[in-house]
């Protein structure tokens, strides 16, 4: 009898533990997004671990970038990427209480979708980190507020993006894009009068995402030496041409 009671109690405890784990798992699945601020008078937001080695990107006005050239640790060594949720950094003097969750999520989710669309051609987007997989972190930096309530001004926004080894966290490439694509655009809270400006904001996000892809394309271009070696190395396995007479 006592054994049965013990078993029942034990089972009940199991259920309680399972419920607790389930609840905790549910909580951990949807962490509350944090909104950070650019430190006063700082050149960069602090989103990257390191801003070392940044230099102007050839052919991309307003962009600073870095791509590792180490033979073992460059972009060519990866074939897929995971894309993290986009983070937001407010301008130093912005009042963070003004940023509503709906506005933040509208902007960041749209930009993440634009990044997925743009980057997947270069690095297919996968769900999980692992070998040969990059982690793409990005932030919309310098967000301020518009003249009207619940509107966000992205006129002075810049994009910071870094690619890390998804297993070790090692930095492989970085991009700080100061191109002002968002001039005069605002993200509102669903006010029909703001639709036009939201459309302009979407174009700006699409533009920044396209520039991320441009940066990846430029970084993946073959050096003259590598192009020569690739050309010499490549031979198809199909039928070999016989010169026509």
């Amino acid at each position, binding site marked *: 009898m006592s054994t049965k009671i013990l078993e029942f109690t034990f089972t009940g405890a199991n259920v309680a533990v399972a419920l607790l784990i389930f609840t905790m798992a549910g909580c951990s699945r949807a962490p509350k997004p944090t909104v950070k601020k650019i430190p006063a008078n700082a050149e960069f937001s602090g989103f990257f671990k390191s801003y070392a080695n940044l230099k102007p990107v050839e052919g991309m006005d307003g962009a600073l970038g870095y791509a590792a050239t180490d033979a073992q640790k460059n972009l*060519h060594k990866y074939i897929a990427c995971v894309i993290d949720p986009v983070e937001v950094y407010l301008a130093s003097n912005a009042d963070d209480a003004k940023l509503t969750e709906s506005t933040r999520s509208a902007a960041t989710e749209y930009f993440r979708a634009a990044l997925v669309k743009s980057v997947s051609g270069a690095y297919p987007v996968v769900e999980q980190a*692992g070998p*040969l997989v990059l982690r793409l972190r990005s932030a919309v930096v310098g967000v301020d507020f518009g003249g009207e309530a619940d509107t966000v001004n992205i006129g002075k926004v810049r994009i910071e993006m870094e690619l890390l080894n998804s297993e070790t966290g090692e930095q492989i490439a970085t991009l700080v894009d100061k191109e002002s694509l968002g001039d005069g655009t605002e993200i509102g809270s669903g006010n029909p009068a703001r639709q036009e400006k939201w459309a302009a904001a979407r174009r700006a996000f699409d533009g920044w995402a396209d520039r991320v892809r441009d940066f990846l394309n430029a970084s993946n271009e073959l050096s003259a030496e590598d192009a020569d*070696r690739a050309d010499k190395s490549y*031979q198809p*396995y*199909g039928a*070999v*041409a*016989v010169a026509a007479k």
Partner: protein
Amino acid sequence: MKNALLSFVALMSTSGMFAAQPAETFHAYADSDICARLMLGPITESRVGCSLSTVKDGANPVLIRLQNNLVLDVNKKKMIDPLVGQFLLATGEVKAKNGTMKLAEVSPQQAKDIPAGDPARKLLDARTYKTDAKLHEKIRHELAMMPYISEFDFISFSLMGSDLILTGWTVRDTNRSEAYNRVKNIEGVTSVVNNIDVLPLGSNDMQIRAGARAQLQQSLSRYFWGSGSDIKIVVKNGDIILLGSVSTKADSDIAFIKCNSVQGAFHVFNLLRVVNQVKSAEKTQRPGSKTNVHKNT
């Protein structure tokens, strides 16, 4: 309800939905799925060598309908397994759209049994592939210069006159379209068939890719450079296909042994070319030798 179901089945049968395909008999070549998709073209000694070695290593046997290069996955693999590397007369129901065949009967035959002038002789005659060497080189160069080709991609092609067939494997879907876009407008190319297979990026295959590259870089580092390598590691559903070139037979063997030690890999198919031996093979033409794989036809 039962009557309605029977009526529906009867209607579908008369409309042809469940109708069996008529059996047909045709000249075929028993190949491995790897060589069939990689080396579309004439049935040379090197092709036969590839077929035999890859099936021996575990590749699936398939039939090639000689008339049009169609690769057919058959239901009764055991029937063709001992006939790989040979010409056959095959009878069965072909579903060309799916690339499958319900095999009824096969019998081996000799190439000479195929009558002269029969369209099935097309694949036997290297002259079918007579084309402009400059055109071949232009296509080869364009494909070699693709920026997102990694150690894990291999794109090959066959050129029959001005008709181009792209084959091979890639981990990036965009490489498939990029290859097509690069070659479609080359002067002299009139049609392009794109048979490039896009590989899945499942976590097991990714582990195998990383493991194989690490093993090969450790032992054969001279074949790897900043943005690519002479050795290509194609991984599909746990199988590793080694392609590209090395300079000695010993290096080819090392690559094979190292890849066999990669955790999670089921089979390793060694199709590496030994560059020095290719040159000598062109002179000696040893039948069935792997080094013949790329000899000129």
